[in-house]
């Protein structure tokens, strides 16, 4: 997969994550709802960064879908979805790490993977798991 394809895939994943946080955040009570807002903000910032990288390469930027296939029935399902979103992002970011030799893109991939791993662990702890970490985030 080319670097442009990897970046496009990440943008598509960020679009989906942003949509997912919009859905799940509404099902969460405070303070988890605020945490979801902050996670959403972080994903929007990464999406913007990735889109800029694509524009720099004169590549087409994927548009967000009108709707995504997601349903959340309550707070616990919302937290579970949040974990899955972050785990999915971790996989995508690590694909970038292994799919490029450019140090700047590698560094971006490591940063994104780390953010996703840390956020996933927070949501797992919110679900009651201790310590909430996994040994090899982003490796499937």
């Amino acid at each position: 997969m080319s670097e442009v394809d990897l970046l496009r895939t990440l943008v598509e994943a960020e679009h989906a994550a942003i949509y997912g946080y919009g859905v799940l955040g509404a099902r969460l009570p405070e303070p988890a709802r605020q945490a979801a807002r902050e996670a959403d903000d972080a994903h929007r910032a990464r999406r913007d960064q990735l889109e800029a990288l694509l524009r720099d390469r004169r590549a087409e930027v994927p548009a967000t879908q009108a709707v995504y296939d997601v349903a959340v029935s309550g707070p616990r399902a919302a937290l579970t979805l949040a974990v899955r979103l972050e785990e999915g992002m971790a996989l995508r970011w690590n694909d970038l790490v292994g799919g490029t030799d450019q140090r700047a893109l590698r560094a971006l991939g490591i940063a994104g993977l780390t953010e996703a791993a840390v956020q996933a662990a927070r949501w797992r702890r919110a679900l009651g798991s201790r310590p909430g970490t996994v040994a090899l985030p982003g490796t499937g």
Partner: protein
Amino acid sequence: MLTAGALAAGLLPLAACTRGPAAPQARPAGTRPPQSPPPQSGSPGTAAPPASGSADSAADAAVRAAAVAREQELLAAYDAALRGSARDTGAQDTGAQDPGARDTGAADAGLLRRLRAEHAEHLAALGGGQPSRTGSPPSRGGTRSRLRAAERAAAQAHARDALGASRQLAPVLAALAAAETSHLEALA
């Protein structure tokens, strides 16, 4: 908008956030793609130690050895912390002054054991090496801060080395760096 079909199907994956060999596409509700086959074990995100018959480049071998050493040091630090925790819990058992403190000690030990187990997985992902048994018991009260410092240093080193590693080794190091960063909050 969410369709009834999507709701009926329960918690469906956001396709763009799930792994599959084909380029994922975020799909509108009600248009789920067929199930994808499981990820290939050799895909970049699951890079494993070199299989028998293959070998690291000299550069990768050195990077891998350094990462193994870091993980061995972390294992030794956790072993020392667990020895100290066991000693402290034993002292509390004999004193029996504060059952709550004893519970806290047991919870701490459980957390430390789980994090240690993740480092053992890291060592295995790097292709082996035996955990070192060096390391002196930390003083009471400083255990978590010392472990946090060790985790932070290892995460930074793994991330730095990932920048110049091969495409096979870099995702492993990146995963280790991410895991160790996530340990920081668990130890807070």
